[in-house]
């Protein structure tokens, strides 16, 4: 039997149909779901953990877990919401574990936040760059790393990736009001750290 050609043709099935096909034994269906969403999941994980290796581990653990537990996906929410929930939970679990046993690479600089910057893991080492966009990205990354992980996760979903508040609440497993308050407090903290004008 010849395996199907792995061309660029996009699978016309919906995410939910692909998950159902995976459960029914289609060996390629889950891979297609992953291909569709991995970049976004990766970005969310990277922003939530603030660490490339942690993000890679979290995404891997989460998607393997999703593959194994796909038969329990009931379709009550969108597949993307389900995948984001698993990935974000994996990121938060890792952040909590790191908070219990904080580690810091010897070469890494400790930012002005000192202990605070290590609360959810070491902030990425910063190499100053003259390009404004790169500088902005580094500043934001550093600033995000200083937030408590719950606030950071809410901000990453809602403000960075435009996930609706209701969906973010579903992903994070909290009430809509909780997401709003976390975002609000997170923005205030970021404004202070980033020195954004207009902060009172």
């Amino acid at each position, binding site marked *: 039997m010849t395996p199907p050609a792995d061309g660029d043709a996009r699978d016309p099935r919906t995410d939910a149909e692909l998950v159902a096909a995976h459960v029914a034994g289609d060996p390629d269906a889950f891979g297609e779901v992953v291909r569709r969403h991995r970049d976004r999941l*990766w970005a969310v994980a990277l922003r939530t953990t603030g660490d490339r290796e942690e993000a890679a581990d979290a*995404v891997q653990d989460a998607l393997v877990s999703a*593959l194994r537990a796909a038969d329990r996906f009931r379709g009550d929410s969108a597949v993307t919401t389900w995948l984001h929930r698993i990935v974000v939970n994996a990121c938060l679990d890792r952040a909590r574990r790191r908070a219990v046993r904080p580690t810091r690479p010897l070469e890494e600089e400790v930012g002005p936040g000192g202990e605070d910057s290590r609360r959810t893991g070491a902030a990425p080492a910063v190499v100053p760059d003259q390009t404004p966009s790169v500088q902005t990205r580094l500043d934001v*990354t550093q600033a995000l790393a200083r937030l408590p992980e719950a606030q950071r996760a809410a901000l990453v979903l809602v403000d960075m990736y*435009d996930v609706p508040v209701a969906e973010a609440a579903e992903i994070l497993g909290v009430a809509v009001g909780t997401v709003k308050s976390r975002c609000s407090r997170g923005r*205030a903290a970021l404004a202070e750290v980033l020195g954004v004008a207009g902060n*009172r």
Partner: protein
Amino acid sequence: MSSSDEEQDDAGVAAFDASARAVGDLLRAAAAQDGPMPADVVARLDAALGAARVETRVASLDHRRRRARRWNRVLAAAAGVVLGGGGYLASQADLGGGAASSTSAGSAAGAPAMSSGGVERKDASGPVAVPDPPVVSSGADYGDPAALQAGAAAVVAASGQPGQPGQPGQPGQPGPDRTLLTSPQDAAGEDRGDPAVAQSLSCAQAAGVDPATVLGIDLAQWRGTPAAVVVSPAGPGRVQVTVLARDCVPGEAPLAAQAVAGPVP
């Protein structure tokens, strides 16, 4: 509260809103610069998902195997009831005497061979309902194309020597205990009645193999999973090797399938 205080509060709220919007803009700008998942992470993820898929499949197969065993027990019990009833009827016919007695007894004796494995077998009184390829049981654990090629050659060789054991010492033969269990001329073999054989033929047919052309089946393993290796012709000097889970479901993809060089009798 004076109007001056209210103005100060309003200004504070407006400033707060402005800073929140500015932070939101910064976050969105940062997100817009995010790239795709790096290639090394993609490769690592694909490998992990591939491994998990295999584990999940093996677990699923175990589950189905247990279910099949339960179902086989039910079938065996049902067959026992049918045979018991048949025997009773035969004994009643004997009591009545006459020429019917020998015919009835013969039918009762033949019944187990027809029902024990759920596959209708070739016998003196009936036609072959399903193809009867030679079945060997090597117990080999195949895992790569070279081993499959050697295994296919051994199956083909065995099919040319009906009723004889295979040659364990042959070069490249993966299983030291390869034993020819059945052949087209050997209707007494036990594994022909194995539901796995009929199931494998059904699955092979669904995978595009003509059961009538099957040269032989090796009850073996594929990377640790109990499997049936179905060998069929694939043109001059080549045979098609289709590896199927023993408890496969027709329509399910084979564990492996490839054409290899091999003698076609």
